């Protein structure tokens, strides 16, 4: 039986949660909401993260548009995802929610704009 103490990153409350792993049986305590249990289970089996960054915009009123992975991606893929984000350029205008990369670094996850950028 393995016991791991984690801090839930589901929201800024940062609950300290304890995960007890007994074979396939994973027990979570210390969470204040269901998200905490989900996070802890995932964190000990397949940890994932939302990645946020920005992409260079051609002819925009500002130089970069902020973006995020539409869903969480495996933690091990973060730097591959960043590499593709860094090598991408988009043309203004960009709308909030617009898909800027369809399948980022083979994760099957979209990169979407989190703000709108008008043409300069």
């Amino acid at each position, binding site marked *: 039986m393995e016991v791991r103490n*984690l*801090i*839930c*990153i*589901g*929201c*800024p*409350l*940062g609950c*300290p949660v304890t995960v007890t792993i007994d074979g396939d049986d994973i027990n979570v305590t210390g969470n204040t909401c269901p998200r905490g249990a989900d996070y802890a289970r995932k964190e000990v089996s397949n940890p994932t*993260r*939302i*990645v*946020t*960054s*920005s992409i*260079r915009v051609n002819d925009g009123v*500002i*130089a*970069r548009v*902020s*973006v*995020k992975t539409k869903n969480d991606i495996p*933690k091990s893929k*973060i*730097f591959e995802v*960043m590499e593709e984000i*860094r090598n991408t350029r988009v043309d203004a205008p960009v709308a*909030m929610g617009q898909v800027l990369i369809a399948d980022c670094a083979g994760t099957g996850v979209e990169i979407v704009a*989190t*703000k*709108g950028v008008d043409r300069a």
Partner: protein
Amino acid sequence: MTHHDIVIIGGGPAGLSAAAAARKAGIQDILILERDGVLGGILNQCIHNGFGLHTFKEELTGPEYAARYIAMVEEEKIPYKLNTIVADISKDREVTYINREEGLVTIKAGAVILAMGCRERPRGALNIPGYRPAGIYSAGTAQRLMNIEGYCVGKEVVILGSGDIGLIMARRMTLEGAKVKVVAELMPYSGGLKRNIVQCLDDYGIPLKLSHTVVNIEGKERLTGITLAEVDANRNPIPGTEEHYSCDTLLLSVGLIPENELSKGAGVSMNRVTSGPNVDDHLETEVEGIYACGNVLHVHDLVDFVSQEAALAGENAAAYVKNGKSGEEGRKVPLLAENGVRYTVPQVLNVTAMQDAVTVRFRVADVYKDRYISVYYDDKLISKKKKKVLAPGEMEQVVLKKSSFADYPDISRIKICTEVE
């Protein structure tokens, strides 16, 4: 002189939420004054996620959170002026602003809502010895340069201070290919949220050195390195603990200061602990008709709580404009922060005119384990709640119910404190 029912100083999260709430409360004539070229304030550069879980029950990035409130203001057609800086607010609520189109203008406000936010503590306030080369930024400045203006801020980075912006920037710069060598914190605990230490430092193997500070800065044109040293209990560097780090960038995340020059000009009384105005439970300052909310009132960790607080200020300012006077006269009881509680907001509670429930927010002075947060009416213990961990970086709250004062008609003070057992 033009008159507006409510003038809101600042179009960031606090100003936008106050405006939306005041309109909902029936005030048509509202004006937001914003010095930047866009609404949304600091959220525009906070491109990370984690905003909005309380307000919208989903996880948004800063720009997305701002967009929700900007949409409310646009849908309600609430007027705002961008690129407009307020130069003065007088005690009788005359607001003087300057912009390119109109020049210097003074308007009269039925009520004023202060929502100017806060700014970062600069290097000059730290007295770090050494040269003054390029490459030293406050963390928020670096965040703006990187996320909005698209500059690469640096390649080898040391961060002083473990406030949330510093932690967020440690991850951000790592993702952009920089090497963040260390985050040093003067205090024996971090000033940032726990989740940010996990997902910004631990995820990327960035060391956090508590009780450490920068004791020397090297480099004439561009920063070439810094010296870090451990500090003792009095925060003085311990000789012999110096370590050298070569770096081209030093980020400072060493605290936020509410931006209250305008409030002081209006004669608002200030709180020495929060560096914000003293307010009652209506979030009204000691100057009638002037309200305060958001980071100008006290620095928050969560924008969701800024929005809640600002909505309350908006509603109360609306009620003031409609009734022509502040909350009915009543028994105003001071809230005292004692034994490990550093301050409370509000500082005064009107127990006769208060809403059914009032949220009192506060911070503790140190990291405490297994302590109670206790509330006393005069010397009578009213409630106590056990907390496993309390930390200065995490704002706490208690809710006081109006009904709870029914048995205490002669109450003269409310005390909020921590207790060991």
